């Protein structure tokens, strides 16, 4: 077995914790435990073996490799990738590791760069150093979930608010808000060609609606057009709803897992400089880095959710070029902060391209552009060498900084994940409009595609000689009309209207009006029952005739 001394230390630490000699768990207290063991508990043979390991850089590297390959596996830290890194980072500052050159890269950072916080040092008007690099690690915790500052001092209550805001994004209102924003206009998880196809589909539906409303009478093609419209709209709606539901459910499940992990984690926020924080403007950066730390600890948490995966991947790869400032509340809302010196500080950092700010007036693009102009371009000092006769042109780049204003941390996630999509917003707006129209038109389309059964004329008939009542036994009176054709009476077309009184069938009331010069007999009249074809506000030419009655039959109906 290699590096037995480390196992000896590790088991001493574990047993000490179990037996109540050590307060902190072996991971949380790794630095102090090692210091105690190495200085006071390690045997002479252990110390010799440690010295032997540290003798050459090669053997030091062997220890690090063994540490990642074997120790991490055998101590069940496979589910948290950052634990070995954290342990090495803590040990790197302690003897004898603080003299081992192979530990140099673990001494300064955990390799988990996050979004920078803009924290002004006392009386600073915005210097490059005020943009502070943050690292966040989520470590397994034996006690309550908490945020522990490392390298700076902060009020634990303020850090707790940042943790609660992160929790809200995983399992609370913050998640609902984020999902609502994404549903409304967020980029969708399918290929570009499919996005175009879906867009064309919605445009086709809109075109069909407009054609049916304002185009020429479709005549015999009305059924085919209606069927196409309903099918296309149904397919698009099902596709959109199905996709959104799938993503929302997966995001909810992944958020639940992340939230549970957060509750079982101690988040360590590292910010060098030994500052004592006054004010809460770093809350947004703390909260976002807390989210990121969970993904870094275990990327499998978000594996099944495209939304979280995309967000976290972008956070991992691009966090270095982002800074954030804003007071955050436990439910994720952002409050305004002093911004001008912070923007100035970011402008002096060429590696910072974006800043997340609360939604306040001095964070508008115009304000930032004005400040960019005010800050002089960063140029290298001129070289005063006589040997360099050729004219040197310093292509000094103007500082570029894009501010993103957010009211809520969920909006910050939308920005960070690159979910904002103008195309999708346009498609969503079109889809909503089209769907509203379709929902209003569904009864009309239904009567075109699945016509109601043909009605039968029933009693009562009118007792007045001036009126003809055509009572119809139908549940859809609005879908029918009645036509009187006669050479004695004026020809009329009348809608069938429902009756308010209970158990009284719907009827069409035709005013009988003699023609000025009648040619036929009084009883020689035919009453047709026709289907009405409508689409929203438009009425088409009469549809199929589904009933035919004589005047004599209808006037006698119910009086026999």
């Amino acid at each position, binding site marked *: 077995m290699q590096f037995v001394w480390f196992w000896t230390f590790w088991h001493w630490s574990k047993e000490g914790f179990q037996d109540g*000699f050590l307060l902190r768990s072996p991971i949380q207290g790794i630095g102090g435990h090692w210091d105690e063991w190495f200085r006071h508990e390690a045997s002479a043979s252990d110390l010799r073996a440690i010295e032997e390991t540290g003798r050459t850089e090669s053997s030091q590297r062997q220890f690090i490799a063994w540490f990642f390959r074997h120790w991490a596996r055998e101590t069940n830290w496979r589910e948290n990738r950052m634990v070995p890194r954290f342990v090495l980072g803590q040990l790197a500052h302690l003897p004898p590791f603080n003299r081992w050159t192979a530990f140099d890269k673990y001494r300064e950072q955990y390799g988990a760069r996050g979004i920078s916080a803009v924290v002004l040092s006392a009386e600073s008007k915005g210097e490059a150093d005020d943009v502070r690099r943050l690292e966040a690690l989520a470590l397994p915790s034996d006690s309550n979930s908490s945020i522990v500052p490392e390298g700076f001092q902060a009020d634990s209550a303020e850090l707790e608010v940042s943790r609660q805001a992160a929790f809200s994004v995983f399992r609370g209102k913050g998640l609902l808000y984020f999902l609502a924003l994404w549903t409304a206009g967020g980029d969708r998880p399918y290929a570009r060609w499919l996005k175009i196809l879906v867009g064309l589909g919605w445009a086709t539906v809109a075109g069909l609606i407009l054609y049916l409303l304002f185009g020429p009478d479709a005549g015999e093609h009305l059924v085919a057009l209606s069927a196409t419209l309903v099918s296309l709209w149904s397919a698009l709606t099902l596709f959109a709803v199905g996709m959104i539901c799938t993503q929302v459910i997966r995001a909810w499940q992944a958020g639940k897992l992340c939230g549970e992990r957060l509750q079982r984690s101690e988040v360590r926020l590292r910010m060098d400089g030994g500052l004592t924080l006054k004010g809460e403007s770093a809350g947004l950066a703390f909260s976002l880095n807390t989210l990121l730390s969970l993904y870094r600890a275990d990327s499998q948490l978000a594996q099944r959710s495209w939304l979280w995966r995309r967000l976290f991947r972008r956070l991992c790869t691009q966090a270095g070029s982002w800074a954030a400032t804003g007071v955050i509340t436990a439910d994720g809302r952002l409050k305004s902060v002093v911004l001008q010196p912070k923007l100035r500080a970011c402008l002096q950092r060429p590696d910072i391209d974006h800043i997340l700010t609360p939604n306040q007036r001095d964070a508008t693009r115009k304000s930032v552009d004005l400040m960019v102009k005010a800050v002089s371009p960063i140029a290298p000092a001129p070289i005063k060498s006589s040997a360099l006769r050729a004219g040197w042109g310093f292509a000094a780049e103007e500082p570029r900084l894009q501010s993103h204003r957010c009211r809520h941390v969920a909006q910050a996630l939308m920005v960070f994940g690159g979910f904002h999509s103008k195309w999708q917003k346009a498609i969503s707006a079109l889809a909503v409009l089209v769907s509203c129209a379709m929902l209003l038109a569904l009864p009309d389309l239904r009567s075109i595609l699945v016509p109601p059964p043909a009605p039968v004329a029933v009693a009562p008939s009118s007792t007045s000689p001036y009126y003809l009542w055509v009572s119809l036994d139908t549940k859809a009176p609005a879908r029918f009309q009645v036509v009187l054709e006669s050479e004695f009476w004026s020809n009329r077309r009348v809608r069938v209207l429902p009756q308010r009184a209970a158990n009284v069938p719907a009827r069409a009331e035709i005013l009988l009006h003699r023609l000025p010069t009648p040619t036929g007999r009084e009883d020689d009249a035919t009453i047709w029952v026709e289907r009405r074809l409508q689409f929203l506000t438009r009425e088409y030419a009469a549809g199929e005739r589904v009933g035919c009655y004589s005047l004599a039959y209808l006037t006698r109906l119910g009086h026999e």
Partner: protein
Amino acid sequence: MKTNIPLLLRWHLAQLENQAPPPPRAARLLAQTQPWWDTWPERFQALVERLSHMDVAFGHAMTDASHVRTGFPVTTLVEHAGEETETSARVLYLSLRDRRFCFRFHLNANIQPAVESFEVTFITDGKMTPVLSASAARSVDNEYRVDLQVSEELAREWGNLKVTDRMPFRLLLRSASSISDH
């Protein structure tokens, strides 16, 4: 020329003896063996008086029934750079084997710059009498460590203590600068 080495050595010894500081007086030697609270009883009484009136307690407003291992804070009075700071310490490691008392604690006060060592005096919680005094050296962050031999009686009394128990003592921490002031 022939050098007389023994003579030269005697001359060198005589030179060194002349340069050496005078031997301490018996009274001073006696004073050095005495604990500091006997040497400066008024100062000690004043500090103990203040320590006895300090009351540090945590209320655990737990929202769930999960096992919380935080330990009990130990009431601590720090005397450093002419100032007295009321604070608490968190016991991180406690071991008493074969009368060897190893004690590691985290000082909650943020003293800048960090003090490399304190003289720590253990005061019994009830009677407020001093029982131990030793040097606590700083190790990692704000953690300090005490390692000393204790009496048989104290070993019996504190032998079963665990870090999660309420400690039967309070701490009085004095930095080197405050000791030299006296």
